[in-house]
């Protein structure tokens, strides 16, 4: 049972790909690698449903006892007042209270439970899509979350050393395009040279970035882009010239040009960057 949620906590799995014709996006864990690791540590399938806590603050009373692992943003994990580790498998006794404190770095921590979170799926996924309003509602105090039956055996290893999310500037790789030709060469150069500050206006849909406005190229000043599909990691440039980088719950299609797209593998890192931190984009070829 959920006793505290922190700023936002949701159920997330690998999302619901394949429904773009219904206007439904993929969603799923914002830091997919962290969610997969948590599942591996407790012996679940990698795409099983876990809890995604934003800036910690999540507390649950574990009724029947459970085997859990906390991954993602490293935070103090406390079971009945006793600190246990993160990125390791932990046995929580029946009736114990499990608490995730605020992480020292990063944004999103994942609580994987052996057997996985067994809320009812919507269109094949248990993920909360905050933009589409699909899937289970964000967690509230008093929610009772069912845990499924465990299958298979957990791995022999019960500890996974991983690097912490960086606290300073974060560099991610991008591929220019598909619409970088809508902007001046100077603006594209600036996109790659500027340290962009992540604004507070950020959530699972995307992060607004503060920096110099990107100027449109001649001929594109007043052009309207016919809506087109977008992917996780797209840097969409609004009419104001301000970029938004899309995260897990991004819209299926967008009406503003995308100047560059973060490499798929690096989008997990984006999910751990805080407001006020600076992002740098390094162009690579495909």
């Amino acid at each position: 049972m959920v006793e505290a949620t922190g700023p936002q906590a949701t159920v997330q799995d690998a999302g619901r790909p394949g429904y773009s014709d219904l206007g439904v996006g993929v969603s799923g864990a914002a830091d997919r690698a962290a969610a997969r690791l948590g599942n591996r540590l407790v012996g679940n399938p990698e795409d099983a449903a876990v809890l995604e806590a934003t800036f910690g603050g999540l507390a649950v009373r574990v009724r029947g006892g459970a085997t859990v692992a906390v991954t993602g943003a490293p935070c103090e994990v406390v079971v009945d007042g006793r600190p246990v580790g993160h990125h390791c498998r932990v046995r929580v006794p029946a009736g114990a209270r499990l608490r995730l404190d605020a992480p020292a770095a990063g944004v999103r921590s994942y609580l994987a439970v052996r057997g996985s979170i067994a809320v009812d799926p919507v269109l094949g996924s248990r993920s909360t899509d905050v933009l589409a309003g699909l899937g289970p509602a964000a967690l509230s105090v008093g929610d009772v979350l069912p845990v499924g039956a465990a299958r298979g055996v957990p791995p022999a290893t019960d500890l996974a050393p991983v690097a912490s999310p960086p606290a300073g500037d974060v560099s991610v790789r991008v591929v220019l395009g598909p619409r970088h030709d809508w902007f001046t060469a100077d603006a594209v150069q600036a996109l790659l040279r500027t340290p962009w500050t992540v604004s507070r206006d950020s959530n699972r849909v995307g992060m607004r970035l503060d920096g110099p406005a990107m100027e449109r190229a001649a001929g594109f000043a007043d052009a309207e882009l016919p809506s087109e599909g977008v992917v996780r990691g797209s840097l969409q440039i609004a009419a104001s010239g301000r970029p938004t980088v899309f995260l897990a719950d991004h819209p299926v299609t967008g009406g503003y040009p995308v100047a560059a797209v973060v490499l798929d593998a690096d989008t997990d890192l984006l999910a751990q960057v805080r407001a006020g931190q600076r992002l740098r984009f390094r162009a690579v070829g495909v």
Partner: protein
Amino acid sequence: MSRTLRPCGDLGLLAEVDDTAAVTALHAALREEMTAGRLAGVADLIRGARTVLVRMTPRADVRAVAAVVGEIEPAPQAASGPDRVLDIGVVYDGDDLDEVAAHTGLTVPEVVAAHTGQVWTVAFAGFAPGFGYLQGTDDRLVVPRRDESRISVPAGAVALAARFSGVYPRPSPGGWQLIGQTGERMWDLDRDPPALLTPGTRVRFHEEG
């Protein structure tokens, strides 16, 4: 048919074509390749107004997929999808009717007549679950988005913008010009598919008293 391929990161490929008909044809051809198992690692085909976005998983051979997307010759499409035309009743009392009339040079009754007097086809989906971008057969109702988005547009609001018509599936912010209201449910998870309007669906609107 001309086709431009643009990268969308390392696992996306945006194929740009001339018009919606070409999108439909390319999408159908690629869907067939996927079904036949010849596009390993392709996760999704996302339609836009003039594009098909091919989204891949890390196990895809991006070059091989790009070769197929660049060279495939879509079969000519049959006239247009299912014969059935969905009939949607609308009360034309939208807050932007006068503005649409002013923009198009039509009277309000002429706007209503233009909206009910053509068959609309869903070109692609987006914005929200169950929101289909409806393309008409003539240009009488081409209007821009509103300068300011409304904070809340009710479910069932019938609207126009950027050459398309659409029906808001649920209350949400919205920047389209509102012309009326329907009682039809655009999105219902107890229905299969949950969306009333999916690409290829044809729609005729009629005026309700």
